[in-house]
Each structure stands twice: as C-alpha cells, then as structure tokens.
C-alpha cells in the first residue's frame, strides 16, 4: 500500500514538473529534457512487462494532453516501457531480486547510467520520429535527438543522485 502511494506521488510530481516547468524549456531551440521518464526508470524490477507497458502508456498519454501532442509521448513511452524488462535483463542479468527499484546503489553507477541512457534513447528516438512524421529534416532531427538524450539522461542521473529515498531503499 505504501508503495502504491509512493508510486502515485512520483507520478503526479513528475507530470507536474514536466508540464509546468520543463515543457517550457527550449534551450537553443533544440533541447527539452523529458524528466518524466524517471518514473519509468524507477519502477520496481519485479513489475511484469504488461504492467510496466500499461503504466508507461498512461504516463505518456497524460504528458500528451498537457503538451497538445496526442499520441506522440504515449507511443514513445509505451515502447520504452515495453523494452524496459529486456534492457534490464540484457544489462544486469536475470538474478536481480524483484522488490528493488533501479538506482545507483542497486545497479551500480555505470550500470544505472547505461540502463538510463538506453531507455532514454529508445524513448526519444520514437518520440522524435513520431513528431517528424509531419515534417522530415534528417540532420536537424538527429541533432535534436542527441541533444535531448544528453539533457534527459543527465537530469535523470542528477535527480537520482539527490534522491535520498532511493539510496536507503534496500
């Protein structure tokens, strides 16, 4: 029960931060960090694929409603959420206990960073491709993807480093 409340508060807080603050950032017209991915990053390892996929979809849909881009974030999040169990399996192996959430402590600094960046790359790639369906400009697209991936991953790692709750989790 406690975990459910924790999860919901993460969800609401990240959506609000994204919708009210980060969506207004457009550094050099290229970079918008999508910190809300932190929610997908932090879901417990033991969650089933179906559950992660569904929660990711829901998160994406709500972000979509706030940014007037119906379907784009939803598609990208669904894909990232769907791929997450496979990423964890490939990067960290099968032997992780179900109850832990990915963090610097449980995955190690390198492990967490690799895991976060793969997830972010998958998400951003899908998101920007979905957006580019309306207008195709390959070089600009690539620059935007790379710049936003760097910003989002950095932000996720910074938030993780300051997330006391994540450190004493286990």
């Amino acid at each position: 029960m406690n975990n459910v409340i924790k999860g919901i508060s993460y969800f609401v807080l990240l959506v609000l931060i994204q919708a009210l603050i980060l969506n207004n950032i457009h550094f050099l017209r290229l970079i918008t960090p999508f910190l809300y991915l932190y929610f997908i990053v932090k879901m417990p390892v033991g969650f089933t694929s179906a559950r992660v996929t569904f929660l990711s979809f829901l998160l994406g849909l709500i972000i979509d409603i706030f940014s007037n881009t119906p379907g784009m974030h939803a598609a990208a999040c669904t894909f990232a959420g769907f791929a997450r169990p496979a990423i964890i399996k490939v990067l960290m192996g099968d032997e992780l206990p179900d109850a832990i959430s990915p963090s610097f402590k449980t995955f190690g600094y390198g492990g967490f960073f690799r895991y976060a960046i793969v997830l972010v790359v998958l998400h951003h790639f899908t998101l920007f491709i979905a957006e580019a369906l309306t207008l195709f400009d390959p070089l600009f697209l690539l620059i935007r993807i790379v710049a936003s991936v760097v910003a989002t991953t950095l932000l996720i790692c910074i938030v993780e480093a300051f997330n006391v709750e994540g450190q004493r989790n286990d």
Partner: protein
Amino acid sequence: MRKLLDFLIGKRHWFLFIFLEFVSIALIYRNNAYQQSVMFSTANIITANIVSVTGSVTSYLNLREKNKDLLERNGKLEMELLRMKDMIEAMKADTAVFRAFVNDSARFFPYDFTTAKVINNSVTYLSNYITLNKGRKDGILPDMGVVSESGVVGVVSTVSDYYAVVLPLLNTKFKLSCKVLGSNHIGSLSWNGRSARYANLDELPRHVQFQIGDTIVTSGYSAVFPEGILVGFVSSFERQRDDNFNSLKVELATDFQRLSNVMVIRNFRQEKQWAIEREAQGDE
C-alpha cells in the same frame, strides 16, 4: 488448445504493447487534422487550470517590456489616426458634398475582437499550440483569427467552455495566405520548423516587385483575418525550383517566445462567405 492458451497468456504483454501502440498511433493520426478533440488537449478544463498556474506567474515577468511595446504601438496608432483625420479633412475640403450619399459612409465593418490571455505556449515542437484563457462562453469559436499587438498569431482550433487552443504560425500544419503590402498577388506562408523568428512565403509569382525589408500582410481572402494585418518583413528570398515563383524568408512580427496577451478576431460574415464558397465548389 491448452497449449495455445498458455502461449497467448505468456505473450500477453506483446498483445498489450501492440494494442497500446495502435491506440497511440490512432491518436496521432486522428488529431493530426486541423481540429483536435478537446479531451486530449490543454483546452480540457483540468489541464487548462493546471497550466494556467504557470501562465499567471510568467505573465508578470516581462510586464515592463510589454508596457513599453504597447506605449509605442499606441503612439504609432495615434499618429496614424491623426494622419487619417488630416487626410479626411483635406478630402472633405476638395469634395462637393451630396447629401444623398451620407448614409454610405457608415459602412458595416464585419469584424469584432475579444482580448484573451495566453496561459500555455510552446515554440520548440514542430506542432506548437497556444492555450488561451477564454472559450465558448466568451464567444470564441473554432476558425477565428488570433493576433497579438504586433502581428498575426494563428487560428483557433479547439474550443472548450472556458479555454481555447490556438494553432499558431509556428505549426507546420498551418498555412496563411499573405501578400506583399502594396501588391495584390498572394503567396502561402508556412513554417519550416526551425527558428521561431522566421517563416517562408512560397508561391509568390516572380514578377511581384519587392525589396528586403518590405512588409508582408494578410490577404483577407480566407475570411479568418481582415485584409492588411501585419505578418512580418521580408528578410531574404530565393527562386523556387520551377523558376516562376519566389520563395521569401519572412521575419515574423510577432515574438512568439514572449506572447502574453492576444486578440481573437471574429468575422460576422465568415460563415456566409464559406457557405457561398462551398456552394460554388459544389456546383462544379
């Protein structure tokens, strides 16, 4: 049979994944059209209330500059008014007054406007949208034109009871018919997704004379904007591939990055114009 069921249950996340992706793509395509559904946009009452929090905070940030802009604009309009009064006086002096025509001067001007506040705005995406704090209850309807104190902003696309979403010039789906001030040939203005300061005016016939710095205004053909509203200034141009048209790079007059108050224009004759245009197209 049992094996098949086991297989299906074992792979249920695949089905869920495919289903959800399908829903997302359906949403993308369904909403790619000019009109969005209210539920999935910031015109929806809950999201609009939440985003208006930041809107009301940021609206205080550049009040000083806004004030300066408005004063300047006010001064310009006053000068224009004086010049026009002067012109009218001069004309009156030169014209023999014929009483029977007096009624003619009170011609009906079919436009009216409402002011609204921008509560949410984006300039980074390829499809940007602006949310306004007024909606159907304030008389705002889809397809009304939106202008700022400095120039054209966009067209209302989705309206809920208290909020409206505007499709601005900075949206790759938006096209606006424009002309160079002083000529009557129209071209089509669209955005290329790069800089929030510039848009492109294409399909302008090559023989139209213009210079760098010339003013681009609305053509008034669309029934959304009156004729002659400022859009921007020519900043550079190039021949289009087929050589009969020029493509102009236009510096937009509206600064979308710090938009805070706008006017929504209502054309009382819009529906009539569209009805008759549809009728004409149907006749073909």
